[in-house]
């Protein structure tokens, strides 16, 4: 998987990361729903049944962590590759700096 990602074109990596990121975010929230549908783990967290706790606090915390991973990948790895492409294309400044009139 990692090697495949390495050889992907940047825009394919960006699309794949977006798809994975969105899917993971949806999955962690719906994890709480799956627990209600297919059986709830039989333990409590802070006094709450697990699936309730997951929907209230576990899911949002997991969302925060997943989004952090996505953000790091998009704003560093992908952005670096885009900047390198922009530099190679015309020797000018990176595209991200040109738009919106402000540096990112």
């Amino acid at each position, binding site marked *: 998987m990692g090697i495949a990602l390495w050889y992907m074109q940047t825009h394919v990596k960006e699309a794949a990361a*977006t798809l994975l990121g969105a899917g993971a975010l949806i999955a962690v929230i719906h994890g709480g729903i799956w627990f209600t549908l297919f059986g709830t783990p039989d333990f409590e967290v802070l*006094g709450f049944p697990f699936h*309730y706790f997951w929907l209230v606090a576990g899911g949002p915390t997991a969302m925060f962590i997943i*989004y952090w991973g996505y953000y790091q990948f998009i704003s560093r790895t992908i952005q670096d590759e885009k900047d390198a492409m922009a530099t190679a294309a015309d020797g000018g400044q990176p595209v991200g700096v040109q*738009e919106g009139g402000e540096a*990112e």
Partner: protein
Amino acid sequence: MEAPEVGDYPFQETFDMVLIPVLLIGITFVAYFGISWYLRSKVTSTDDYMVAGRTIGPFVNGSAISATWESLATFMGVIALMVQVQVPFLAIWTNFLLSIPLIVILYGQTLRRLGSYTPATFCKERYGNVMSVVMALLIVFVMLMYALGQFIGLAQIAEILFGWDYNLALAAIVILVVGYVVIAGMWGVSYNAALQFWLMLTAAFFPMMIVLHQLGSAGWFFPPLGYGDLTTEMTDFDPGFFDVNPELQGVQIDLRWYVAMFFAMALGPIGMPHLAQRIFTSRNVKAAQRTVFWFIFVSALMFATVYSVAFAGVLWLEQIGASEEVALADFDKMIFYLNFAFNNEIVVGYVVAGAVAGGLSTVSGHMLAISAAIANDIIEAFNLDVTDDRKTQFGYLSVVAAGFIIGVIALSPPAFLVVSILWAFAISAAAITPVIVLGVWSARVNRYGAIASSIVGFFTILILSPHAFSSIGAGAEGLTAALGIDAIMIGFPLAMLTLVIVSLVAEQIDSLAVDPEDNRALINEMHGYPDDGTERFTSAVPLIILALLMLPILYWGIQPW
């Protein structure tokens, strides 16, 4: 059960001294108008009016989006629904939390890079003028339905708490909201919404600490998670509260229900322009991306706090022996009842100010979205020669007009009003979200597919939902049908299939002159790539896979509920 009149319950329901909440709400309004007036000098162009000059940082934006997103329902609707619908409601509500991260990931950051004002602005550039007008009209329709509920809720607060006549309360609310939206546009509204969020959170959080402490909850110092020891009382009150597979108004809540609910309640808000516009106000793409961190943190804190009110309310009613007397619908006012019981009227006044802040932040977002759709997108679509100043004036005028129209409709609200907000999500999921998201991620979708998809999505939901044609339905009944949850299982896959099939077929018709190459520069620009001649996002394979995935969903959707 007949709804009890005020005064029927064995506890305080309204203020003894109305002057207290009036003063506190008055102070907050002075603050809102003060902020708006201060920031008014910054509004010198359409960019300033529509997107606050694109200057808003992640913390302010995260708070402002959270306030806009949460609305009055957080104080007045969530608590009763927690008690009535129970854990499935929690699943519905938590789905909403997905909307902002998904907006940013799927199109917010790209459209911010492009410099769009609204989703319709993007549609003009991506699909042309006709689609821009279609999208602007959809935005106005969805926002009017959404705003209507908020205006009525705000008017009802004034009616219940101050004893005003409903029409007078409604007129006062319309004037106040329109006044402060007009004064500073998105700039003032953004900073005000951030302030309104913190007002909402503090109005819910700190009073609940006192309530939980007096109720004997061990975790009173942190209401969002400190009420775990009250779960026994909740189970005593309703033994099935935490059960799996409950029924909702006669409909078994099964896997299909949850999938449909995901389409409506997570994918619907993605298309909501008042939320997307907030992302477009970010000072740059990175700030837009960072907004999500603040949004998740503060929104989760707010929601978890409000859930505690439902548990505390149930325990308190058990303790005073009034649990059988209170109508379920009156759990909407539980946050006020609890504070009347355990805090003084100044604190309750502050809680009311928090509720008003919730409604105000949302409805101002709606007004600006309507304003942008009319004053910018429709004018641009018809290529009218209008100066920037005149466009801003049109913006002010459209806010006043929208306020007037909503006010008139709200005088005799339609019967389906309570669910119209969530029904609007279903329309958004089918008619708005697909054309925007796929327009960003595929160069192969085009204007023909987009126009057909939006029209098919809109009319499918409209026809299959019980609000317009009650004799035609998608199979479910009760709340499931009213929210458009059954209709979305047909409307969403149909809209996606239409978008993909019509787009790919249009490419094959020479007379339509569709060439994905025409989108190359735009697609490269919005994703931040140089226009170096490289083809990006041009494969039809992902679209075909997506269309194939829609087929079993459509088949699933047309099965009997």
